[in-house]
């Protein structure tokens, strides 16, 4: 019996993606703690391993050895299934992300759509977990998360639509392919398509923060208001999986920003393009995400909706109109 080589390739990629997602989740926690520490003029983790590099391992072991309590009165099915439902779409998103010209698990023609579709499932898992855990704080958090995601999906997708209009494709590899050859070709500086492109990048970035529930939009967790929001009742690794999914989502969001706006694996000076440039850009964006978290206070829920409906959505529509007008004219 022979196995199709494509299947083997896909399997290898899947394992690689899961490892990548898990490693990222673990080491982004380390990065976050280190970065927060230095921003606050302290060291951060330092005891476990050199520079605290083994800290994620220790944390993981700690989380895994904890008892998985299912509190009385919860909906056991929803409660158990929710972390998985949050984690799987996060991993699925990686399938079609091109890290370089060849390093892509499955180059879908509708890759862009697939990533955003998977990203939206994430909120469903949060909602189920929050509702299932029979906690008032969690329910408040779930209500917030859902309307937050609805509100931020719109400006995000509208900006992406304007990009698709410029690129004429939803294939991520092709979108990057059009931006190759130096930073002046990148979409963020594509003033010929729309003079508002840097603003569009900002909008995308802000929406990405909101979609991944990162500070200052961490309405779901909001520890000073809702204790831990949707995760309040989750013990041990149940919480750990939510945590990993959050970081996996950040990686996806930053990858998408890199692909759509920053030319993916392209070198800014047109030399040696490759996966290293992709990772460099992506990790810089992640660094920024963490940097933002440790700088700002949290917005309120209505402040967040105001921002979306009153500022981001109008501007993204202006950008869309401008792009279509420019495309028509030139």
């Amino acid at each position: 019996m022979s196995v199709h080589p494509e299947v083997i390739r896909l399997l290898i990629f899947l394992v690689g993606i899961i490892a990548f997602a898990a490693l990222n989740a673990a080491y982004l926690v380390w990065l976050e703690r280190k970065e927060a520490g230095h921003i606050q003029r302290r060291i951060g983790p330092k005891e476990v391993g050199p520079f605290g590099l083994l800290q994620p391992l220790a944390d993981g072991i700690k989380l895994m050895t904890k008892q998985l309590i299912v509190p009385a009165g919860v909906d056991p099915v929803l409660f158990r299934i929710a972390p998985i439902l949050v984690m799987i779409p996060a991993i699925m998103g990686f399938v079609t992300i091109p890290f370089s010209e060849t390093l892509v698990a499955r180059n879908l023609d509708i890759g862009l759509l697939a990533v955003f579709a998977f990203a939206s499932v994430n909120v469903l898992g949060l909602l189920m977990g929050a509702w299932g855990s029979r906690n008032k704080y969690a329910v408040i958090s779930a209500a917030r998360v859902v309307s937050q995601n609805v509100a931020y999906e719109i400006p995000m997708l509208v900006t992406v639509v304007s990009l698709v209009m410029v690129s004429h494709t939803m294939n991520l590899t092709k979108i990057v392919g059009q931006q190759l050859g130096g930073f002046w070709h990148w979409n963020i500086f594509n003033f010929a398509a729309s003079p508002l492109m840097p603003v569009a990048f900002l909008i995308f970035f802000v929406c990405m923060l909101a979609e991944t529930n990162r500070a200052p939009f961490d309405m779901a967790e909001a520890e000073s208001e809702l204790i831990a929001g949707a995760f309040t009742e989750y013990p041990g690794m149940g919480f750990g999986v939510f945590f990993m999914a959050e970081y996996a989502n950040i990686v996806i969001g930053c990858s998408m920003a890199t692909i759509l706006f920053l030319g993916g694996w392209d070198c800014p000076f047109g030399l040696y393009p490759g996966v290293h440039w992709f990772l460099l850009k992506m990790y810089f964006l992640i660094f920024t995400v963490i940097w933002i978290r440790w700088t700002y206070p949290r917005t309120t829920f209505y402040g967040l909706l105001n921002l979306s409906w009153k500022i981001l959505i109008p501007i993204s529509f202006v950008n869309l109109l401008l792009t279509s007008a420019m495309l028509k004219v030139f």
Partner: protein
Amino acid sequence: MSAFAQTQLKETFVINLGPQHPATHGVLRVKLVMDGEYIVEAEPVLGYIHRMHEKMGENRTWAQFMPNTGRMDYLHALAYNHGYVTVVERAAGIEVPERAEYIRVITAELNRISSHLLWFGAFVLDLGGFTPLLYAFDDREQILDLLESVTGSRLTYSYFRFGGVYNDIDENFVPGALAFIKRLRERLPMYHALVTKNVILRTRLEDIGFITPEMCRKYGATGPVARGSGINFDVRKHEPYSVYPEFNFDIPVYPKGDSMARYMVRMDEIEQSMRIVEQAIAKLPDGPVMAPKAPKILKPAKGDYYHAVETARGSFGIRVVSDGTNTPYRLKLRSPTFSNLSLFGEACQGMLLPDALALMGSLDLVIPEIDR
């Protein structure tokens, strides 16, 4: 109306904020009746760290009660020490040397700055920003180091005595205090750029959490809460005690009454306290720090005496009833946050949960002082 119809009127639920909650700074519990995320009714439930200081006072000598005062408001302990020693000095007719009063004012004002700095950090932490807390701690640490070198303790100083202070300041204190003021003057613009001007913080605080002057009056709110509602009331100016009349300082008053006004009052007070410390250090007289005739065993004359001081949170009053023996007959401790918190239930009605928490943070609660 039938019982069934009544329950259908509004679908509310009760949420217990605390006693263990990240935003209640200690063990305060607030019973909230919520309609969605809107607060219909809020009832603070107190007493989780009630220690009955007033009864303790009746069981100890006048001097032995001294350490208790610093343990009520552990963030501005010296003001509480100050209030207590002043009222006992008033009752017993003890004259305090001028140098001692100056030292009291200097240390109490430094302590006020440290209290406001901690409040600043904790308040921004309530709003979800973690980093300013650590920056504020960095500055506060300098004050604690200074006070530790003088008083020997970092939080519960018990530094003042009837008739003076425990021991004189050391030679490093004055240069240290001046260096700290210079440092904080450089840091304050950073705080304002990082936090005060931040658009997220402004949208969270401006026009939210109104407290009207009438409400302040009915509930007896004092301190930054009253001053944030446009009431120019500060015991240091209103009913001057110690050597405060010697100094030239302003009382920051913001008339708007929202959370931002209270925030700005405290931030401005840091600057005013630094001015007081500078002037006091410049004028610091020589002389003894302890009244030579201060009696070892106090027996104040019969009667009752009242004295109030301005702490970082408002007017702290002590009513002392003496029966002429060496223990107080009755000690009433009027803590400012008790009154300030009592208006929370009315002020937060109809607010959203995060705004109510911002309002609660802007009241600057220190729970041991409320519960006493």
